[in-house]
């Protein structure tokens, strides 16, 4: 077996042709791929929101107990938790890129 590049390219071409003939190269089905990733996203969205809300509520409750400011901080942090939940979901479904 030689490692000559032209021979490798020739092999790749013949392999691709053979796979084409045998019907092994299925054209990617964009609708199916989108449905699978949507299922994944759908399973994540709800938990992401609820988790941030729970963390906000717990942080507020804990700070209230430490600072004796019941119930002010819990109200504030519950709202912030909701904001963080929307932030989580936005990170999931929003435009991709460096820190939108």
């Amino acid at each position, binding site marked *: 077996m030689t490692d000559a590049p032209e021979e490798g390219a020739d092999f790749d071409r013949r392999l691709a042709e053979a796979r084409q003939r045998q019907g092994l190269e299925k054209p990617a089905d964009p609708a199916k791929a989108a449905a699978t990733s949507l299922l994944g996203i759908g*399973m994540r969205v709800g938990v992401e929101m609820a988790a941030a809300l729970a963390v906000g509520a717990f942080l507020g409750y804990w700070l209230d107990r430490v600072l004796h400011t019941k119930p002010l901080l819990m109200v504030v942090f519950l709202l912030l938790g909701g904001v963080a939940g929307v932030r989580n979901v936005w990170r999931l479904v929003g435009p991709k890129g460096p*820190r939108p």
Partner: protein
Amino acid sequence: MATTIDVMGQFKLTTALGPVGASVNFTQSNLTMVVVCALILGLLHLGMAPRAVVPGRLQAAAEMLYGFVHRMCIDQIGEEGKAFFPFIFTLFSFLLFSNLFGLVPYQFTVTSHLAITAGLAVFVIVLATFVGLRTHGLHFFSYFLPEGLPIFLAPLIVVVEVISYLSRPISLSFRLFANMMAGHVVFEVFASFMVAMAASLGAIGYVMAVGPFALDVAMTGFELLVAALQAYVFAVLACMYLHDAVHLH
């Protein structure tokens, strides 16, 4: 009525391996984990033993598992992801085999306990934070302050980002735990319908019990999807958190 519907009983921990296991509180959950790890090691060892150029079935399975996780690491984390490949591979194969092993009748699902999933999720988050601090030093904390932010908004956004960061282990662990538990609860609900119908309606009940049985069969197929998907989602999210720690955005 003789049959009561006890759907949560299946998640109760009992000791395994007789009196020896009972004396050290070795539960069926621990036993299942040992079996799952043995299955993974067995697949890799027996699969790769032939070292054939054209792989057989077992070797193909082992190679596909390896290649799939390797690609996932590099796609999600980048070139640095190779360093985390052993960890992600262990995590993914453990979760995948645990989820699938739980679908074998009479077997326990390790991942249907929050203690297990939360333990893994906390491990992932602590590792990601440690990697971030190790790579970037204290500059890591700029992760909580997006660039180009008006300074008067900073206190608000930093708190929101910190809450968002802290919510990661919770969403990570609850998603896996809730999916696995809910699936097995639904199995048991339909199964108890079957028993209740057969017990109370006689011959007609036996005919009608075919309905829940068909649903359970269909659920098994769906649960196979959920088991694989949830293991994949857990591993991908672990990769994404590590990516954030390495690249800070």
